[in-house]
């Protein structure tokens, strides 16, 4: 609608609360981080301008470099293993096999449990002495593979990221809803042309559900970049910093009163997030958020 004179005040009144909150919690924090990232500051004393020093410090820190690497692996696994799994599940369920609604409900179930509770649960699964995983290996006669999953250099990081890759419910439901909105006629036409189900999925369903799939890839990759709770609970970054991630790094820097390096790390995270978003949008599609 065009704005009428008598609506002007109302529009301002209605927009103001959201704008104030957005400014305080989204715009101001980023400006603040940019400024602090060039300062040396403990959080108590007066900040001192130090130029690029904080950035040099973190980029010379092997732990930070490893956390970037871990986050990138995490984001790629999320976008290109977890989401494709979700798409396959959505495709299968879109043919409404027996019990599809039950599958849909159950797949989404882990999403309503908090990351902290799930991580604590998985700590019990991975536990070396009485955990579910080692117990399972003993039962199926692979007892020699038992290990301290979260405490061993080789297995720690894979253990931390693999378990949630199969929790696909959220993305599956978004994609499934999109698929179910595709008009039946397209498939009838394809049927007449003799295209089989797999052919139909590849040539009709996937292209038409592209927007929701790209949205899921974006959400999943950002999720991979901002991981914190899982690592914090399962390993706190150890053993030997093998499982560290950027948010854990900046959290620990903050706890050590190095507000400057923590802010620099936060800015690197935001920059990487922006690059990832722009890359996905430019290569896969812009019609999302």
């Amino acid at each position, binding site marked *: *609608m065009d*704005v009428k004179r008598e*609506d002007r*005040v109302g529009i301002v009144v*209605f*927009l103001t*609360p*959201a*704008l104030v909150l*957005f400014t305080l*919690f989204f715009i101001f*924090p*980023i400006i603040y*981080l940019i400024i602090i990232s060039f300062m040396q500051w403990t*959080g108590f004393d007066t900040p001192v301008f130090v130029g690029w020093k904080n950035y040099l410090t973190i980029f010379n820190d092997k732990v930070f470099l490893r956390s970037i690497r871990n986050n990138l692996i995490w984001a790629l696994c999320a976008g290109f293993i977890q989401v494709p799994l979700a798409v396959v599940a959505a495709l*299968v369920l879109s043919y409404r*096999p027996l019990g599809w609604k039950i*599958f849909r409900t*159950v*797949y*989404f*179930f882990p999403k*309503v*449990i*908090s990351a*902290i*509770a799930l991580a604590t*649960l*998985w700590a*019990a699964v991975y536990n070396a*002495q*009485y955990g*579910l995983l*080692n117990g399972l290996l003993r*039962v199926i006669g692979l007892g020699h593979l038992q290990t301290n999953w979260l405490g061993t250099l080789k297995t720690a990081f894979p253990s931390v990221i693999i378990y949630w890759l*199969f*929790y696909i419910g959220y993305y599956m*439901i978004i994609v*499934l*809803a*999109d698929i*179910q*909105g595709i008009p039946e006629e397209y498939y009838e036409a394809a049927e007449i042309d003799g295209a089989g189900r797999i052919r139909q999925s590849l040539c009709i369903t996937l292209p038409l559900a592209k*927007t*929701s799939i790209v*949205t899921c890839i974006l*959400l999943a990759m950002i999720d991979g970049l*901002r991981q*914190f*709770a899982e690592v914090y*609970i399962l390993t706190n970054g150890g053993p030997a910093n093998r499982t560290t991630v*950027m948010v854990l790094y900046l959290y620990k820097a*903050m706890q050590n009163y190095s*507000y400057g390096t923590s802010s620099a790390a*936060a800015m690197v*995270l*935001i920059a990487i*997030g922006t690059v990832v978003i722009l890359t996905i949008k430019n290569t896969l599609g812009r019609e*999302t*958020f």
Partner: protein
Amino acid sequence: MKKRRLSPGAVLLGLGKWTFLIFLFVYAVFPVLWLAVASLKTNGELMANPFSLPQVWQFQNYKKALAVSGIARLMLNSVLVSTAATFLNVLIASMAAYTLSRFRFRGNQVLKVMFSSGILIPLNALMIPYFVLINSLGLYNTMGGLILVYTAIGIPISTFIIMGFMASVPEELEEAAIIDGACFYKRFFTLVFPLSRAGVVTAGTFQFLTCWNEFVYANLLTSSQAVRTVQLGIRYFTNQFATDYVSMYAAIIISILPSIAAYVLFQNQIIAGLTSGALKG
């Protein structure tokens, strides 16, 4: 109808399909079920065989869990914080969504893009600014601080979801109301808001789940048991229970029960909200 002959390929595909579906099914529920069973065993039984059923169902694990963890208080805090933050968030987001989705004015498009881009900002990176902001407002270690933060961080996604629903309310309805002399506020509260109920409920459900499950800022912005939420409680279980694993498992089960109950009750609402396409962009 012609009876379909099953080719070996089709059989294999069917087998693969069901293996896939059932694997994901088991994966989603089995660990939780295992934990629930383990929480009813003795520590000795758990060590001896992680898969056995308990000889005697140890319900006192739950009594102990309630006593040691102080979880009842944490739950109450979570309910208060999540309810308040959801109510405020949905109200503020609906108001913004109304102006943005239904009026053409200068800057409208810019604001829409700005709000939507907020959805993809990795919020965990903003710990220092939020900590400084909440401290300087004198809200550190208060439920008010958490409510403010949670209300704010959900604004982009809630506005985005509700905008989609409000845009689909026919303009003619509102024009008719204008002719009847309804003012801006009356049209919002008696017409557009009620007609976008589905979107408001969807946004509200997600906002509530986000608040209930939030950990990073609950951890950063509180320091005393009196204002802590459930998620923080879980983090301290490992210290509180030390090697009494079964009681700790009981505490974890207690802490996720409300989420499970809410999901069972509202699953249609949650799934319908997601399926309405609100999130697909």
